[in-house]
């Protein structure tokens, strides 16, 4: 045992390799879509794993390692962001979130997207659209639609109520569809829904 901890070093390494390391590519993808910088994403992932190992006693073996690691990474990202936000041209992360949350209440409409548009999109276009979403909306899309986290897991990772997860996700998906639709129209696609005959 080390430093009075109850888990032996061998056991820590075993947990680390068996339960934590298999999620490294998911964490790297998440980190990359938060930072858009390969080096920063690597730093964030490395920092996450170093912290996970250091605080491994706080992890309940055999539970949801992936959600635990994502939470560590999200906190590391926010702390880093907050440091940067002290620069005058940056805004406070919480202020941005709170602003959008209050906006959510007023803007509860649904945005639909024609199937043909989606079929003709390329990965680059969806990546570009996702990139242009504010990070708190990008985050919920990545957690829900790419990593398949449940609302409850997302609420724990993001430290927000389940209801906020739902509303933020709803809004994020709408925003993404709007961006994709605008992009598709700029390429000449038309939305023919609701028309009785082709023009």
């Amino acid at each position: 045992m080390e430093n009075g901890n109850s888990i032996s070093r061998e056991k820590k390494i075993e947990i680390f390799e068996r339960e934590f390391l298999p999620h490294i590519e998911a964490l790297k993808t998440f980190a990359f879509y938060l930072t858009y910088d390969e080096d920063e994403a690597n730093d964030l992932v490395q920092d996450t794993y170093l912290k996970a190992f250091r605080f491994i006693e706080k992890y309940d073996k055999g539970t949801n390692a992936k959600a635990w690691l994502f939470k560590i990474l999200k906190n590391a990202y926010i702390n880093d962001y907050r440091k940067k936000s002290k620069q005058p041209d940056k805004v406070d992360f919480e202020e941005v979130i709170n602003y959008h949350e209050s906006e959510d209440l007023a803007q509860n409409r649904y945005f639909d997207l024609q199937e043909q548009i989606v079929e003709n999109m390329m990965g680059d276009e969806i990546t570009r659209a996702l990139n242009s979403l504010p990070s708190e909306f990008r985050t919920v899309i990545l957690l829900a639609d790419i990593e398949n986290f449940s609302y409850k897991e997302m609420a724990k990772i993001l430290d927000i109520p389940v209801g906020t997860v739902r509303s933020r996700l709803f809004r994020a998906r709408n925003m993404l569809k709007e961006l994709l639709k605008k992009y598709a129209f700029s390429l000449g696609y038309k939305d023919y829904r609701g028309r009785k005959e082709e023009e």
Partner: protein
Amino acid sequence: MIEKNDALNFINKVHEYLDNALSENESSQFIKTIQNDPALLAILNRERNMRTFMKNNLQRKTVENKFIESIKGQLY
């Protein structure tokens, strides 16, 4: 004409269904309710396709073995 609140409730249900946030009972009840309505089924399918498309097309990052080894090297 469908009420705005009903429409929003339906859309929320679609999201919950696709996000696996409904119980087994609620899911089958939901499908039963919409299975004879082509317009509602179309909305469900569009949402489903959008997610499938996202999952299949968003670029996932890979990690080189030497990166993993460098993390391990700092720990043990």
